[in-house]
């Protein structure tokens, strides 16, 4: 069993650094450090890199709970960090879209959000992530109590929207978005199975479910 001390002192910082690597890599390519470069369409490169890492971090966030059923509560300690990285990457993804891709052309942005389903669903996903980032602190968590778990189910919505957004923009080859859809389906499916399993022994008297479910939300 890995001690709490090891977790906090080594594993968490290691994961933090790992989560920064894609961002650093992108920065090195943007600033053309050494022989690193973005491609002929740099704005698209940035858009895609930030989007895909946002979605990966979101999947990692949602993987911590099922992982904790398998190996014990340790992964729950990394969940918030993954979630905040997902939000960071998604925010930069949206910023890149607004500033570099659209150069703040408001008309075009509004048209995109209203008329392009893939942008609409992406925006929905991003909006869903905002309250999660805001209420990620211990203070908010205490204050919201049981409602915190309820609220943080929005993470499912954000992940589904992210996958859908990816799926809808592809021109022909759906392999990559389908990989993420499969991962997400597995993560959500695991929760359904687990909930059923937990629900089963409960006698049909309508009594409240075990309060121990507390940490099993997103």
């Amino acid at each position, binding site marked *: 069993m890995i001690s709490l001390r090891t977790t906090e002192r080594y594993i968490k910082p290691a994961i933090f650094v790992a989560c920064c690597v894609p961002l650093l890599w992108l920065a090195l390519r943007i600033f053309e450090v050494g022989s690193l470069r973005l491609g*002929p*369409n740099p704005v698209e490169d940035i858009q895609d890199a930030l989007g895909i890492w946002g979605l990966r971090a979101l999947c990692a966030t949602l993987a911590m709970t099922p992982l904790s059923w398998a190996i014990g509560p340790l992964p729950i300690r990394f969940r918030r960090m993954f979630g905040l990285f997902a939000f960071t990457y998604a925010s930069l993804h949206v910023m890149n879209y607004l500033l*570099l891709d659209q*150069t703040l052309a408001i008309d075009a942005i509004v048209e995109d959000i209203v008329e*392009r389903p*893939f942008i609409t669903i992406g925006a929905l996903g991003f909006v869903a992530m905002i309250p999660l980032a805001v209420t990620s602190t211990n203070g908010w968590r205490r204050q919201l109590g049981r409602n915190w778990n309820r609220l943080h189910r929005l993470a499912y919505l954000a992940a589904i929207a992210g996958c859908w957004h990816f799926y809808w923009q592809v021109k022909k*080859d759906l392999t990559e978005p389908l990989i993420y859809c499969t991962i997400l389906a597995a993560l959500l499916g695991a929760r359904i199975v687990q909930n059923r399993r937990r629900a089963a022994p409960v006698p049909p008297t309508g009594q409240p479910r075990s309060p121990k479910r507390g940490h099993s939300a997103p």
Partner: protein
Amino acid sequence: MLIRQKPAIRPSEITPESQYLDRRRFIRSASLAGSGLLFAAGCSGAGDEPPAPAPAPAAPNEAADLTPNSFADITSYNNFYEFGLDKGDPARYAGQFKSQPWTVTVDGEAENTGTFDFAAIVGPHTIEERIYRLRCVEAWSMVVPWNGIPLGDVLRRFKPTSRAKFVAFETVVRPAEMPGQRAGVLDFPYREGLTIAEAMHPLTLLATGLYGVDLPNQNGAPLRLIIPWKYGFKSIKSIVRISFTETRPRTTWSDAAPNEYGFYANVNPDVDHPRWSQARERRIGSGLFAAKQPTLPFNGYGDDVAGLYSGLNLVRNF
């Protein structure tokens, strides 16, 4: 656009990009500014008249608009699904491809059909140099200095009959050399088609090179179409078959997604792709901070080609 007569280019004759751009600058300033279509008299190679003093440069946006993209950009950012889906895949995987020897089969409604060697197709013609805007259906664009022959000049030699209403084209199928064909994302061979009037239009080019060198494999060696007023997917690469037909031929992208890609595929800022806007385009090579630029009807070639479509509903026939 710029059209310039040029003697046939030997494969060994490579123009360095910098020198090329210098020549360009002179030609642009010497040419007549017009409606997006600029003709310049031939002026290259040893023995030519020395260039006349250049008059005032063309309007700045015209000039900016036709500055060719770098050779590196043109040859590393390609949609050529036969070599893979990523824009970098063609440059990465096209090295194995053998573009010589090459034959083209000509069949259908024409008198002079058969299988012709590359030299027999290209040999009788003068290779011209044309700087065209290229607008991809994905809302990005480039400017490319192509070398090639007006397609109509080539087609006329096959003597199409009066029943030839369309011309269909096919790309080579060589899964051993083209990894994307092994993945089978599209229904290969890639097929494209034009009306006979579009095919015979003087702007339609059968390209054999760019920047004065033979077409790199990733750009569709050794023979490809360039139809500058249509989305890039119409400009079929590595052509091995040309068929004159009476009925409209099947085309790969409109078979794959008929609601997204039509037969005509004329560049049109007013008809959006179902999933994205076609009103503006990202000019490749414009850097991180450039705004997208407005897309022009028929990609700026409307004065020359809009007449081909009089009476046609361009919204329905996208």
